[in-house]
């Protein structure tokens, strides 16, 4: 047994090496290769039909993993997971490189929604939802931000009023990505106005498509309509769909937001492993951008290409390190915040670099220069 396995839980856990062998052969037989031009973060370019087809494809990929026994590597077996360790998920992350995988279901369905459910849900709640999530049947969203709230989620004004064994919800949530094609929402609501704001909140599970919930798609400045606002009017849900104690929603919320920050280092999600483990190094989008702009002969451009590639390597290495430090207890869970701070700094710089590399065609472009144009549009939403 390798040294790494020493830190796993006791019991008859499959050896990571044999897991790798089994997984490698299963992937080769069952999973399609990664699409040639993976659309990364530009879902706004899809038509609604393409988007819905992609969601269906995601569900299908997740179902394949489930049927192969590879969905939810570290989720408990009793809820449909594989019941394995972080090390196994790491192996999965390494082996999935080059294959298609259900990327859009990782966040926020697995992290933070399913993780919140695992930590705070009752046995019945977990049985009702975790297997469905792992089968790709339920895609979850966060009903967290509110129009008036800014970053102060504890100031939630969406109310849940008790009526016997039911709760009646009213209010509005905003910035839910893709609520229009999702199934369930994790919803933070105010259940008590008489106490300080952090002490009057509760968390509920909410079916998105039901009478009383109107989903409005917000148009972003880049034309994307991915984000939604929901108007919730007299929606009644059973008390069994409450997560955690009444008025104790902030306890759940604190962990929820921690999980949200941790997506880059979580083992509850699948992230194809970075360049280190990637035996054949990939090409660089910055190099391609410089080639498209015909500027590879310009040292200033070459400087930017190198900086972009370096920051990508730094980012991958940092997330791996911070993840490992938290997993091994060398760093407190606050370390997740560092990952976010760094990610913010780096992604900002990378957005600037991409825009620089796009040249004048990043401002006005012909059909031939659509790639540069999309960098210009992306730059407009740098902060988003």
């Amino acid at each position: 047994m390798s040294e790494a396995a020493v830190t796993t839980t006791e019991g008859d856990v499959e050896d990571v090496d044999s897991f790798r062998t089994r997984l490698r052969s299963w992937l080769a037989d069952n999973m399609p290769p990664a699409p040639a031009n993976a659309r990364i973060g530009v879902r706004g370019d899809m038509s609604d039909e393409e988007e819905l087809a992609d969601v269906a494809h995601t569900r299908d990929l997740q179902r394949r993993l489930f049927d192969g026994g590879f969905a939810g590597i570290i989720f408990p077996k009793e809820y449909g997971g594989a019941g394995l360790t972080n090390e196994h998920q790491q192996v999965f992350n390494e082996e999935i490189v080059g294959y298609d995988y259900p990327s859009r279901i990782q966040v926020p369905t697995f992290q933070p929604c399913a993780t919140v459910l695992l930590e705070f849900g009752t046995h019945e709640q977990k049985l009702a939802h975790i297997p469905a999530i792992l089968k790709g049947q339920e895609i979850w969203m966060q009903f967290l931000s509110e129009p008036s709230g800014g970053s102060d989620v504890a100031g939630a004004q969406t109310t849940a009023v008790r009526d016997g064994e039911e709760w009646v919800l009213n209010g509005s949530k905003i910035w839910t990505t893709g609520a229009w094609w999702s199934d369930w929402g994790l919803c933070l609501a105010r259940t008590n106005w008489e106490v300080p704001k952090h002490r009057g909140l509760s968390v509920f599970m909410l079916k998105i498509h039901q009478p009383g919930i109107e989903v409005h798609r917000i148009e972003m400045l880049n034309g994307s309509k991915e984000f939604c606002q929901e108007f919730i009017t007299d929606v009644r849900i059973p008390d069994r769909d409450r997560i955690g104690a009444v008025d104790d929603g902030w306890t759940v919320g604190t962990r929820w937001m921690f999980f949200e920050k941790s997506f880059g280092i979580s083992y509850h999600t699948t992230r194809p492993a970075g360049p280190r483990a990637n035996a054949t190094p990939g090409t660089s989008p910055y190099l391609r951008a410089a080639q498209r702009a015909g500027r590879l002969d310009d040292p200033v451009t070459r400087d930017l290409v190198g900086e972009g590639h370096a920051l990508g390597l730094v980012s991958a290495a940092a997330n791996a390190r911070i993840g490992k430090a938290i997993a091994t207890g060398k760093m407190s869970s606050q370390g997740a915040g560092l990952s976010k701070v760094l990610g913010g700094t780096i992604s900002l710089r990378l957005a600037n670099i991409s825009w620089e590399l796009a040249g004048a065609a990043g401002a006005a472009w012909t059909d031939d220069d659509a790639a540069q144009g999309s960098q210009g549009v992306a730059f407009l939403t740098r902060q988003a």
Partner: protein
Amino acid sequence: MELQLTSDQEFFVETTRKYLEDKVPVQSLREKRDDPDGFDRPYWSQGAELGWTSLLVSEDDGGGSISGSGLADLALVAFEFGRHAAPGPLIPTNVVAAALSMWGSDEQKAKELQGILTGEVVAAWALDEPRPHDRLGDVTLAAEPTGGGGFRLTGVKEPVEAGGQSDVFLVAARTPDGLTNFLVAADAPGVTVTPMHGLDLSRRFAQVALDGVELAASAVVGQVGAAEADNERLLQLALAIQAEEVVGAMDRCLEITIEWSFNRYSFGRPLASYQELKHRFADMKAWLEAGHAIADSAVANVAEQTPVAAETVSAAKSFLGVYGPELAHDCVQMHGGIGVTFDHDLHLYLRRIVIDARLYGSVADHRQRITSILENRETARV
């Protein structure tokens, strides 16, 4: 904030401001997103009546200034254009007007320039070319002599602001005798104008392709072979006007954001602590004032044609090309999610600032241009 306007200038600015608020309120810009032209002719010709196109034209040619410096007056219009993210070919038409007033033939003055002054003619400046010739000042469009002083022009210009809305283009081309400017009618045989995509909601850009366009000697603007120096002058004018426009857009961005942030703060829903707000706004105000200062300095130096005019416009361009987008992005970011929605006003200014950062040379182009200016000066001294 404008320093030391004369009362005539105050009146002039106020008239333009009211006109823009009335004719092109921000909501109208969103509605025109898919309009192929972005502005309509009556809007432009009424603006011309207000003086938008006459300030760089000499009095003899029917133009004139408010304050004695037409460029300083135009700078005030450009600032308001920025503050309103206003549509209309302010920079290209004024550049062409200046060129015709300075170097145009009597015929060109009587026809195209008069049309520009009344607003009946819209003119575009076709200087830049597509990659790999998209470096500042890189012109390859060929002008082949056809005898009798005529030329045949072949090549592509892009991006041409208001190229699809213009009646006439000022085209820089290479003749055997050096860089030369030509006036080319949009409907001349061999001219193909193709709309481009762009970031701005209200401004349009086009590719202008010239395929063996036959021109008479009368199409030449200025002297054959003199356009290298002439275009330096035009570039300085364009950059000075553009700098003021960017500063206007920055000014409005920050105004919106300060108002919004302190409102949220007083209503107890702050996105940031008071201390943090204060620090960030101090930074942004400093960038804005510095931007306004270097833009005004560019205007003054270009107007007076001082020895430091060239480096000052490039300093303005390279400073605003960095701090303009930074300020606008910071403003968006301080708004939280609402700032990146299409229905919000902020992105109209962000778009204007970002696109301006890319027209007439990049930040890197202008920094390196400054170095060349310094180097040439040094060499000249030795």
